């Protein structure tokens, strides 16, 4: 199994590199997929992102699953509408922490929330 490395908004899988829209905070392989957590500070500090959000665009879903050839498999569901994930607390089961104060267990096959608990 090839390891996943990242630098800025580039993912390196084996000898190939995959660009992603914003800087990567965490990335790892899980069940043959690349799980990527985009850095929330990277897109929240982007003026064009803020402008698009004010125009009514949906918030960027910053937890993604990619195939090894770079195809987007899913974007993880948020517990609340305006939200972001900021940390992966467990890779298996896949558990992430959200800005809305939830610890969410994510289904690695679909990106849906399986379980969530508020830590306030």
């Amino acid at each position, binding site marked *: 199994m090839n390891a996943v490395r990242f630098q800025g908004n580039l993912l390196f899988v084996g000898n190939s590199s995959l660009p992603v829209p914003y800087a990567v905070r965490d990335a790892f392989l899980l069940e043959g997929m690349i799980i990527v957590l985009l850095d*929330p*500070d990277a897109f929240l500090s982007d003026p064009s992102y803020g402008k698009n959000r004010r125009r009514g665009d949906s918030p960027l879903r910053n937890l993604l699953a990619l195939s090894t050839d770079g195809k987007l498999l899913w974007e993880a569901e948020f517990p609340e509408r305006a939200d972001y994930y900021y940390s992966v607390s467990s890779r298996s089961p896949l558990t992430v922490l959200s800005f809305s104060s939830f610890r969410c267990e994510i289904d690695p096959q679909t990106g849906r929330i399986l379980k969530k608990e508020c830590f*306030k």
Partner: protein
Amino acid sequence: MKRFWRWHGTWMLVMAVWGLSVGGNGQWSDRRDQYFHPVIVVPHGPAPGGAVASRSTGWAGDGRANGAEPDAGLWPAAGADGQYRAIDACRYDEELQREHDLILCEGHRVLWRFGEQLRQEAIDYVRWSAAGGVVGRTVRTALKSARQTARIGHDAHNVAKGTIPCAGGVIRQFEQQGTKIYYRVFSGDATTGRWLTSVPPKSRAWAQEALALPPWNKATHIQEVVVPEGTLLERSRAIPVPEWGRLRGGAEQFKLLEVIPEANFGPGRPLS
């Protein structure tokens, strides 16, 4: 506007009742002698020229109308003082009396119609107000029930999905005026979250109880949070959350309704 319509309705009701009592039951016609005397004013003393038109009250030279003298004893004597006196002309002229009756009758009819119209409007007003009130109450009740059902359903759904309502008291949304430092307590790796306080909690135990924190938030650390100007917040009070074993609550809390960068959450320091 509401006050105007209430006044309008009351006025119409009063007018309708008055119209009915006065015009509708013939009370005015019964009292026309009392209230509608057509009076003319004659001078005491002989009229100039001494001529009087036939079948009219006339300016009597001797103070009397030509023709019938139905009640000669009631005819006022000419006064020597030149003062005018009011007399009931109808009593001395049948034609005038008939005209008077016709006018009264027509007036009575107009007034009766006016009263009827007012009464009908008042009844309609009352009827539609009552109907509107009933419909309004029914709709309000239905909406309230639907809202409550939806809320209960939503709460049940939230509890099932892991979201437990924890805000009560006066819940007020506002936009942050000027950048301000808020505080947040946490434990473990949960270094970012949307629930804040405007003053630092005094102790870990106080924070856990007063902010009704879940058992897995031990409030071991406190951090400062920079909330930028213009950020939308919701102020409320923590309510007891028995599911988490918190039966007190009561502390003032603030919920970030908009996301702010993670960089705005300062490093945590231990809370005793």
